[in-house]
């Protein structure tokens, strides 16, 4: 009961004036009844009681006030707590929404696709060039199957993945895909119906392709003959059957955006850079992968392992004995063979067989970039010979086989019967200076001067020119020793010839 009413009541009781006091309180009603029914002594007793009661009531009220204050505070606290909680839930909800949206990409449109891109012959031809560089056919074709019809099992960190049918078949291929669907798959690795594709499909490289190239490729694929071929179900390993987890893979390893241009380099270099990084996806094989099949960022082009074959390093860590030239690379990439390096084999053979269909200027651009790439990256730098060294050695081999092999070839009868030691054991051949071997070739060892037949050697001073002698010497050095090549052989031969023939 409120204090002011209490005070009024008290005053009224003490003065016997009960009027004008609200009698809503039940206690008061009971007490007045008692007053009316009892005598004055009772009144005094009751008054005492009343005072006590009043005091109690006043004390109560105070605590009520405290309570009210507390409640006020509590209510305020509660209100704050609610706000914070609300905020918290808002944040959680927001992140959930983001996560959900991000984990569960929406299914693509179901509208008719092909009209969205005009299938003109020029665009299709351009797309064929893109497909050649991207080498779609090698993964999207199974042995004995039709081109682009998919079904090739590929072992990966995610399990055994089967390549999709990318012919425009409506039921089993991409016949219903719009350009938008296709672009999303190429850039984000998301299928038309929204499910995520395993990164074994190198969308982390294709994401850098230009819109034009993707549209051209789409036109090319849509112009193919549809093939009905259902793709076998992937066989993922735990936990990758939950494709949504691939969203996290993308977060870590999918770096979207176009290939940057370097204004200090030529147009051809930049074109080659784009082709290699985007559609070519060469890094995908020629870079070591981590346990999630993502390229190790700091080890680009350091080499990798594919189907048991080594994809060699394409940067300065390359072990090619002779540096690749643009012509050699162009020949290798487009004909699967390089006269100074050898034949492409294993998984690379599939690549070069497809690159045979790429535009020549594209292959040359890629070669331009690759020649530059050979010089990049530190550590383990192997000193390479160049084309001229190789040509010299090849000429030397030809000369040796005609002029020297009859006595000096390990298989020759003169070597086996004559007691002549192999050139591998010759000090002159292994020496730091080519002086003695040059002298020997020029003058031979005259028959008159020696006692035993194997000692004789015909002179070649008038038979071979300085350059030819240098060729032979260079060849002998590589053929019979592991020692480093003698430098400046032309000068050395001229010098020795002059010294031995002062006239």
């Amino acid at each position, binding site marked *: 009961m409120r204090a002011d009413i209490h005070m009024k009541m008290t005053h009224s009781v003490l003065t016997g004036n009960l009027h004008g006091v609200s009698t809503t309180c039940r206690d008061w009603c009971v007490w007045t009844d008692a007053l009316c029914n009892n005598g004055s002594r009772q009144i005094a007793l009751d008054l005492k009681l009343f005072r006590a009661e009043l005091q109690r009531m006043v004390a109560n009220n105070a605590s009520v006030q405290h309570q009210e204050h507390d409640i006020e505070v509590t209510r305020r606290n509660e209100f704050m707590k609610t706000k914070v909680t609300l905020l918290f839930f808002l944040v959680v909800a927001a992140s959930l929404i983001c996560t959900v949206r991000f984990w569960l990409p929406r299914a693509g449109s179901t509208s008719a696709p092909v009209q969205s891109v005009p299938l003109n012959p020029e665009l299709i031809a351009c797309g064929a060039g893109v497909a050649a560089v991207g080498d779609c056919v090698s993964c999207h074709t199974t042995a004995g199957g039709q081109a682009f019809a998919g079904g090739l099992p590929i072992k990966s960190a995610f399990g055994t993945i089967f390549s999709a049918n990318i012919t425009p078949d409506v039921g089993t291929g991409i016949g219903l895909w719009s350009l938008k669907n296709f672009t999303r798959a190429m850039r984000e690795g998301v299928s038309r119906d929204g499910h995520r594709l395993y990164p074994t499909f190198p969308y982390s490289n294709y994401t850098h392709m230009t819109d034009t190239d993707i549209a051209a490729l789409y036109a090319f694929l849509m112009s193919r003959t549809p093939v009905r071929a259902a793709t076998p179900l992937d066989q993922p390993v735990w936990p990758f059957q939950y494709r949504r987890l691939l969203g996290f893979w993308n977060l870590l390893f999918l770096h979207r955006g176009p290939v940057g241009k370097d204004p200090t380099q030529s147009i051809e270099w930049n074109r080659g850079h784009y082709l290699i990084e985007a559609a070519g996806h060469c890094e995908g094989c020629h870079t070591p992968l981590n346990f999630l099949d993502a390229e190790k960022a700091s080890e680009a082009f350091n080499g990798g392992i594919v189907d048991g074959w080594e994809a060699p390093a394409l940067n300065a860590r390359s072990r090619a004995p002779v540096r690749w030239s643009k012509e050699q690379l162009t020949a290798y990439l487009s004909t699967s063979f390089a006269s100074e390096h050898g034949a492409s084999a294993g998984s690379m053979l599939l690549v070069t067989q497809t690159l045979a269909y790429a535009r020549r200027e594209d292959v040359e651009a890629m070669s331009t970039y690759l020649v530059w790439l050979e010089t990049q990256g530190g550590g383990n730098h192997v000193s390479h010979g160049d084309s001229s060294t190789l040509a010299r050695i090849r000429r030397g081999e*030809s000369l040796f086989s*005609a002029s020297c092999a009859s006595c000096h070839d390990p298989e020759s009868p003169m070597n086996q019967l004559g007691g002549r030691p192999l050139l591998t054991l010759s000090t002159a051949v292994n020496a730091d200076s080519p002086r003695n071997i040059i002298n020997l070739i020029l003058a031979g060892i005259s028959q008159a001067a020696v006692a035993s037949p194997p000692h*004789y050697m015909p002179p070649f001073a008038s038979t071979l020119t300085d350059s030819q002698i240098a060729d032979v010497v260079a060849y002998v050095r590589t053929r019979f020793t592991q020692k480093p090549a003698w430098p400046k052989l032309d000068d050395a031969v001229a010098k020795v010839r002059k010294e031995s023939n002062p006239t």
Partner: protein
Amino acid sequence: MITLTVNGVHRTLDIDPSTPLLYALRNQLQLNGAKFGCGLGQCGACTVIVGTAPEFSCLLPVGAVGVRPVRTVEGLGTEARPGPVQRAFIAQQAAQCGYCIAGMIMRAQAMLEVIPAPSDEQIREQMAPNLCRCGTHMRIIAAVRQAARDMSGQQTLGTVSVSGARA
């Protein structure tokens, strides 16, 4: 494609550059004067003149000949009109089986172009790389002596030929 100048004629041959000149002369050009004796530069039966020097054609790949003119015994003269060295060898009957003779003639020719009046010692020294299994060495030396006389005689007397009827 290998281009050679053989006996003054340019010839183009589609053969491996490491083919020994001897094989090209005999197989592609049908110049069978030079013979295969050892293939090792030890008998001289294959001797031809390349540039200005006598060479073992069994040890010289066609790819290495370059622009140096090649001369074989067929280029020195014909059966009807033999050259001076050939005439000397015929006069001295220096051949038995004849297998070493083409080489001997070419080495002699090369020597006489550089040493027009050689001594016997010089003749022996210069002809040493060429071997004869039939033992006609004495007649060969005599033929070279005569060739030297004949050729220097021709030089001194200008156009008058000493070895035949006076012109």
